[in-house]
């Protein structure tokens, strides 16, 4: 297991796409800084305003970038044929998938939280005494939100990994995650009330606000899940995707 973990870590850090994905994710901090400077300038003209917090507004960018990292951790092996070497060296397929999940999980958990914290701190430092709406709560109030956002990033990366194993195709897996992250919430939002809120409560992007007891959006109102149920749902997504991936990986030829 130790050797498999080390091998997966070596594979992950030795390809440029990993660092490009990390770079795209880190764009969040840059955009957060630009955003805060912009709204601070507006606040100079208008006094106070209610601006969106950068660590929430740019979260889809972080989620998407690191999900692509999770997808590529496996589909690039199918594209290059490396998967055959990997499974020859680690014949127990569960071990291989577990090692990948651990490495992708830890890498995205670390990177996600670091980027979120940097975005958060930089924007609060720049915002200084301006009254921007999002910087008027204390750090202790915001920590649960940051943790929930970070966990959602890792959950999505593992969903990406699971779907990557299941579809064996970069395009297929990324498109499936996009459906989960953007298309389903879009379509569900247009259902007549109260079904829009009911269905939306179960969707991945809406689990983060429910985890910390925030409302989903001004249109959808409060979600239906209490924080513990939202956490369970958030864990159920990667568990289902990885489970499906594992069953298919075990049964199929490479």
């Amino acid at each position, binding site marked *: 297991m130790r050797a498999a973990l080390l091998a997966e870590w070596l594979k992950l850090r030795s390809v440029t796409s990993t660092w490009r994905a990390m770079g795209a994710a880190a764009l969040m901090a840059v955009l957060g800084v630009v955003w805060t400077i912009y709204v601070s300038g507006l606040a100079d003209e208008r006094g106070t305003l209610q*601006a969106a917090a950068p660590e929430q507004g740019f979260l889809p960018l972080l989620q998407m970038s690191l999900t692509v990292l999770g997808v590529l951790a496996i*589909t690039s092996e199918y594209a290059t044929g490396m998967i055959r070497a990997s499974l020859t060296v680690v014949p127990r397929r569960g071990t291989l998938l577990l090692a990948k999940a651990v490495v992708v999980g830890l890498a995205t958990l670390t990177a996600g939280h670091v980027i979120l914290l940097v975005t958060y701190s930089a924007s609060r430092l720049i915002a200084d005494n301006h009254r921007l709406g999002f910087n008027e709560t204390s750090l202790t109030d915001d920590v649960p939100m940051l943790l929930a956002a970070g966990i959602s990033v890792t959950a999505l990366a593992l969903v990406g990994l699971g779907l990557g194993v299941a579809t064996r195709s970069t395009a297929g897996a990324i498109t499936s995650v996009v459906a989960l*992250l*953007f298309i389903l919430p879009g379509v569900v939002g247009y259902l007549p009330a109260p079904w829009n809120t009911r269905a939306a409560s179960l969707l991945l992007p809406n689990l983060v606000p429910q985890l910390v007891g925030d409302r989903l959006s001004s249109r959808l109102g409060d979600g239906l899940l209490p924080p513990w149920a939202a956490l369970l749902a958030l864990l159920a997504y990667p568990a289902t995707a990885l489970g499906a991936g594992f069953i298919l990986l075990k049964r199929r030829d490479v």
Partner: protein
Amino acid sequence: MSVLASEWRKVRSVRSSYLIVGISIGTILLGLALASMAAGMYDNAPMEQRPSARIADLEEVLVIVPQLCMGVLGTLVITSEYTTGLIRTSLTIVPRRWPVLAAKSAVVGTMSLVIAPLAVFGTYFVSRWVLGDRFSGAYLTSFADRLPFLLVTSLTVAVFALLGLGLGALLRSAAGAITVLVGLIYVIPMIVGNIPEPWSERLGSIMIGALPREITGDIITTSVYGSLLSPPAAAAVLVAYAVLPLLAAVWLIRRRDA
């Protein structure tokens, strides 16, 4: 002409194309399900609530499915060649290179122009048939009035296909191109919607989702996008989304190694 025929054969001979076309047309079934659900809820609602019940245009909501699908198809027809190495063969056979991209554009563009109207008009007619005069007659407006909007909406699907192809040829990677495509469709509009005015409306007006209503002059006040562009300007922006990445790709493919 033979370049065109070979590109058509390439698209026809991979399974993912059929899956993508199937899902695009399957949008009609999704529309049927959503419309039936909405109709059921309308019928169960108390009489006094019915006049205030509203429903979104399902064909406008659901067009994102064929848009994304055909965008992915556009990406795959070029990035799969880079993955498998087929691109070297393709460029050896067509050494001037740009005809390969032109033929691919023609194939995915034409496919989109056939499939998108099927999906969009199909969703429209199914919703109209299921919903009838419910929701204050939202679907009772005459077909002729809706026709321009439905046509332009179908056209955006072809724009996505060409945009996907252009991005795929520029980035040479399915992951990169699809991520950028998704960023353009979903992530950037979400961010733009949160920017304080006046930039939210200004930038919102050039998002692809805003363009069909700007082109046909069907402005609604509840739109998440802006509506500042005149019909010709909006049409020009729509064409630019498809053409500019492709032109950049033609320029690059002639200079880069394959």
